[in-house]
């Protein structure tokens, strides 16, 4: 299994959609074969279409607000000693998280395909909120599938979705979280694929959805590459790019331009959700030894039992609370290009507290997992090491959880 150079990772799959011969694919019911093929062909066409690219860039700049800023966290750096800590503040994007890139692109594709309805899944509610925003912006009718448990714990985002005119469909099956929301959304698409476009909220699902999402979030690393060059004159020699990984859309987007670099120069570190310290449950398929399985139409490392039943997961952060992970991250793990670890709920909360105490930054619980790793390793590293954390979401949505766990208003 080998990574190729000079080819975007999203295109390094075989004819059946597998990365490294075993991750990804399209394990879908027959009914979805045609809509998935149609979407695949449309995307192939659109990504080469200059007009479409111009449109994308226009909305990325004027609607999403590209580029998001790249800042040094001086206080945190001084406090920890060791490596310099920087942040790519992706949470500045319209709506408050990286999910807006994928949502905007899907809305544009939906329009291009002449469909009027768009549906999507959501965990933390960001994917749903952004899809509802994009749907409103482009005049599409929108339905969001969301686990009943997540609806309760991410109320601010639900309010936003409703305000944007989207219908939230609560999902009561299974663990009532993201995994069930994705299943229910796919079921809905099976029944309505003739007039409805489906957006998968992360770099998961059948091959084409992994590709579209990765293609969309790659904007983050395109910006960062320019910002690094302008800040340091050239790409520095010791960089560590730290990103949380649930499905893996923000991590892929943060890394895509840098995968070709030597890992000694640019290390890629993915941080999964380790769950509560005292619980056996987690949402860390890459860093806590799981086997390959098929979930939601793709093969990836999956939290599952011996029989192949998908395990319940547990994490304080709804956005990372998912038993599977992007096939591209499985590929990056097995080729050893990226390193994956996890942070517990408690570590993420501590990191959130520390970052907000020293910096004018309010990372949500998802990137707080990445900050936890940065805080852990920074003191041991040299001063010329540049740690960059993708602060990919804003903590407004976590208001209720933070109040409960930390007493923060």
């Amino acid at each position, binding site marked *: 299994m080998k990574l190729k150079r000079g080819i975007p990772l999203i295109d390094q799959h075989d004819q059946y959609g597998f990365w490294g011969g075993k991750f990804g694919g399209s394990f879908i019911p027959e*009914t979805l074969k*045609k809509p998935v093929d149609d979407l695949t062909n449309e995307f192939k066409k659109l990504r080469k279409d200059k007009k479409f690219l111009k449109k994308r860039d226009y909305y990325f700049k004027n609607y999403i607000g590209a580029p998001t800023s790249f800042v040094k966290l001086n206080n945190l750096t001084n406090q920890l000693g060791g490596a310099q800590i920087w942040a790519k503040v992706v949470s500045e994007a319209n709506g408050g998280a990286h999910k807006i890139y994928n949502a905007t692109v899907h809305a544009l594709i939906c329009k291009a395909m002449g469909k009027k309805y768009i549906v999507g899944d959501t965990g933390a509610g960001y994917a749903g909120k952004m899809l509802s925003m994009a749907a409103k912006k482009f005049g599409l009718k929108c339905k969001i599938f969301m686990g009943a448990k997540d609806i309760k714990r991410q109320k601010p985002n639900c309010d936003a979705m409703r305000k944007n005119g989207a219908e939230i469909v609560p999902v009561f099956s299974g663990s009532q979280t993201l995994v069930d929301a994705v299943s229910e959304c796919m079921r809905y698409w099976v029944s309505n694929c003739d007039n409805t476009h489906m957006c998968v909220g992360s770099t998961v699902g059948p091959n084409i959805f992994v590709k579209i999402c990765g293609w969309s979030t790659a904007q983050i690393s395109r910006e960062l590459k320019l910002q690094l060059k302008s800040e340091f004159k050239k790409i520095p020699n010791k960089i560590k790019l730290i990103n949380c990984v649930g499905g893996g859309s923000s991590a892929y987007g943060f890394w895509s331009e840098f995968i070709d670099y030597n890992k000694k120069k640019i290390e890629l570190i993915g941080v999964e959700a380790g769950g509560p310290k005292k619980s056996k449950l987690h949402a860390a398929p890459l860093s806590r030894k799981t086997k390959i399985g098929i*979930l939601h139409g793709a093969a990836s490392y999956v939290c599952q039992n011996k029989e192949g039943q998908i395990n319940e997961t547990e994490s304080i952060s709804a956005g990372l609370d998912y038993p599977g992970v992007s096939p591209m991250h499985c590929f990056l793990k097995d080729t050893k290009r990226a390193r994956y670890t996890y942070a517990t709920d408690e570590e993420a909360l501590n990191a959130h507290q520390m970052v907000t105490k020293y910096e004018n930054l309010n990372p949500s619980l998802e990137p707080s997992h990445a900050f936890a790793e940065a805080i852990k390793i920074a003191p041991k590293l040299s001063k010329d090491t540049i740690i960059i954390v993708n602060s990919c979401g804003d903590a407004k949505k976590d208001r209720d959880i933070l109040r409960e766990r930390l007493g923060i208003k």
Partner: protein
Amino acid sequence: MSSLINQAFQNARNENRPALLTYTVAGDNTKKKSLEILKSISNHADICELGFPHNTPIADGGQIQTSAYRAIKNGIKINDVFSIAKDFKKTKKNKPIILMGYYNMIFQYSENKFLEKCKKSKVDGLIVVDLPYPENKSFSTKCKKRGINFIQLVSPTTSKIRLKKIIKDSHDMVYYISMLSTTGGKLKVSSRKILERYSKIKNQNKSKNVVIGFGITEKTIKSLKKADGLVVGSAICKEITNSINRRQNTVTNVTSIVKRLKNKIK
């Protein structure tokens, strides 16, 4: 020698009616009960489909999901599914049984081991919901080698070219999904339309047995009786749920619904 599946269709044809295929979930609501149900309904059904439940079923509607979750909750394991099939075959050795489920269960068991186990348990066929053509080619070949029917699915969205290829690659039976829906949806397409599409599939190769499934209930079954076979799943699972809720005998209730279904297509 012709497969038991082929023979079942031939028997029905001789009686001038479509074959009746039932779907129940192994272990719903217990291992023992599901075997009893299976044995009892097989007196009226021509072919029995037995689901091996998965907890992330992306193509199943509410009724079958409920049955699947119930079976898993009551502790059903994949080896229990095989033992149910094997037990069933001890007394009903000429009644074809088809296992149906999602690919991850097979993948975790390992394809070869799974198929060996099927063979030992005298399973006649397999339907894997999320392993479409052409990805299923190698698995389907493995099935054939062991004398197990791999059943291809086609749907209203299947293109002409694709249909040709799928039929060419199919074994004795092809499953036509009546409409764009998960299992157990309300039949939203007219029977005439469904049969029109059915004929197009059938005309590709008359020797293949083509069954129609999804949305078939006591109300709709009669209108589709021109098909080679008709599958009823959700309506049966729903009856199991209702019987449990009313604390009634699931075996008797499910058997009588299957009997009624059969009478409607005689």
